[in-house]
């Protein structure tokens, strides 16, 4: 799509009284100007992340230096283990008799919760989206309208009544309230996957039907294998959302041994002490690393996901 539009627009149309040469030069100047603007914007976007990294490796004295120290000298890589093993963290993590840095408790908890929520979001999203994309039934349009409407339902509006529900079930101070709802579909994922499924030619379904496939076989053997990019998009969005979520854990989890990283970072900020911003940034860096790595590895799916959800809607 983009190469087509680029090819077409680079053909300069000569206007009366302007030579082709000077017009081409104007375009070049304009494009250089745009490029420089884009670079400036990129620098502004990157500075905070740069600051996260350099602060994480400074010694505690130089965090408050004026003027700010742009490059740590020396790079204190020991900040990372120090932050992860800070005495401010109340929990220890023991695997096979080996005691690992305390922060690993929260990292491990987050991995478990996030893995189960990603599975729930992707699985339920795919099953439900298949129904909406492929099966005709009376009332399906109205129901899909309801799905879209729940995208606009603020989570905070249902947070308190949901809390009462989970408390009545005795699920508070556990991960269940964070995990279980993802197995019943979220509107955004259903919408995204439905849009993608609709793009798969129906002839494939028809052919499979003639071969005697039922709907579940069509879903499993045709739609799912062809939808890997969209499923990956839902999975990466779900990962980033649940990895970073604070509100849910803050409401439901009380015991520090069950904390996820977002909650640990928020709760133990004070414990690091005011002078230890370097350690706090080191912990922050570690906690955001999985999302950053995932982003660079699976960037294609992020972009694809947003495009499908935003443009084709």
């Amino acid at each position: 799509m983009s190469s087509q539009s680029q090819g077409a627009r680079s053909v300069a149309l000569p206007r009366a009284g302007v030579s082709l040469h000077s017009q081409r030069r104007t375009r070049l100047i304009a494009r250089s100007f745009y490029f420089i603007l884009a670079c400036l914007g990129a620098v502004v976007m990157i500075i905070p992340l740069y600051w996260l990294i350099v602060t994480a490796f400074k010694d505690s004295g130089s965090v408050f230096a004026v003027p700010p120290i742009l490059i740590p000298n020396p790079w204190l890589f020991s900040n990372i283990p120090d932050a992860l093993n800070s005495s401010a963290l109340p929990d220890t993590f023991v695997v096979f008799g080996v005691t690992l840095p305390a922060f690993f408790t929260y990292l491990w908890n987050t991995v478990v919760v996030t893995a189960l929520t990603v599975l729930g979001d992707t699985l339920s999203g795919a099953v439900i989206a298949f129904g909406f994309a492929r099966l005709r039934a009376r009332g399906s349009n109205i129901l899909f309208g309801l799905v879209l409407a729940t995208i606009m339902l603020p989570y905070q509006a249902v947070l308190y009544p949901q809390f009462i529900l989970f408390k009545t079930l005795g699920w508070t101070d556990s991960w269940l309230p964070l995990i279980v709802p993802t197995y019943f579909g979220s509107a955004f994922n259903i919408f995204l996957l439905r849009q993608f499924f609709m793009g798969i030619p129906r002839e494939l379904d028809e052919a499979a039907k003639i071969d005697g496939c039922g709907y579940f076989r069509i879903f499993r053997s045709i739609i799912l294998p062809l939808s890997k990019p969209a499923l990956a998009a839902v999975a990466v969005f779900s990962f980033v959302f649940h990895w970073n979520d604070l509100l849910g854990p803050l409401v439901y989890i009380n015991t520090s041994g069950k904390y996820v990283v977002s909650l640990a970072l928020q709760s133990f900020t004070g414990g690091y002490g005011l002078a230890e911003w370097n350690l706090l940034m080191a912990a922050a860096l570690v906690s955001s690393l999985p999302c950053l790595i995932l982003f660079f590895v699976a960037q294609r799916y992020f972009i694809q996901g947003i495009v499908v959800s935003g443009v084709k809607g």
Partner: protein
Amino acid sequence: MVAQAQAVTASPRKRKRSSFARAETRAFYLFISPWIFGFIVFSAGPILAAAWFSLTNLTDIDINHLPKFVGLEQYKALLDDRLFWVSLKATAIYTLVSVPLNIVAALLMATLLNQKIPGLRLFRTIYYMPTVVAGVASALLWSQLLRSDTSGLINWLLSQVGLGPIDWFGSSNWAMVSLLMYNVWYFGSAMVIFLAALQGVPTALYEAAEIDGANAVRRFWNVSLPMISPVILFNAVIGLINSLQSFIPPLIITNKGGPGFATYLYGLNLFDRAFSDTQQGHGGYAAAMSWVLFLISLVLTVVFFRVSRGIVYYESGGPG
């Protein structure tokens, strides 16, 4: 589910169409049944429950003692609560500025990147990157960047050009500005959507406009904007819902909505009423706040769609 599918295939081909249709209907409801359950238990149920709770004096959850019906008393208390209005006002200001600010920034940057400049993919990556670290870590980072003396990076940069230092968290207005700055750092996700939409605009339209003598600005106003208007509406609605629920930034960056209650956004207020230790026993009140938030987002979304009717251009001739 497998049994269901086999039942469908087993039915003889020559039967009436309607039996196929009925089987398809059954399969449809089977596939979407998790959503129906989730919708009732996690969305519709809670909203209706909140409506009921908000009419009671619910204090703590105790199934043995049902709360008493108190009519509209919780709502009356809400209207008399100065903090409710303070948080509503802060949220209104925050939303009114942050939503348009992010849309404009995202739209301008997308247009810029759509001008055939080299390194498009790299730029897209960089602009989108902050979005994946949105959370406690990045909020802590920003509270560090905005430190009030010149050892904070932003204040040091400002002081170099004679504009600072600014006591970001010491004044109501600057505290709000710092939240807005943090928020605009995330314009990348909207930008990527705009960029994809712009690339989907047929080039023939631009060529025709150029032949008619339209300059770049005219082409943007009269071709790009109408063509991507549905996407602008989409981003505006999503931005609206997100900004009404903003929670982590006022909690961490401005330290629980400070100074005073200048950045005490609605989501934070609701959270405190419902869950904070010092405020136990305000269940009915928290439910009333939940219901008000629901109504506000409902009304605003309807207003957005109404206003956009006649402005937003749909290629297929109707909303698609």
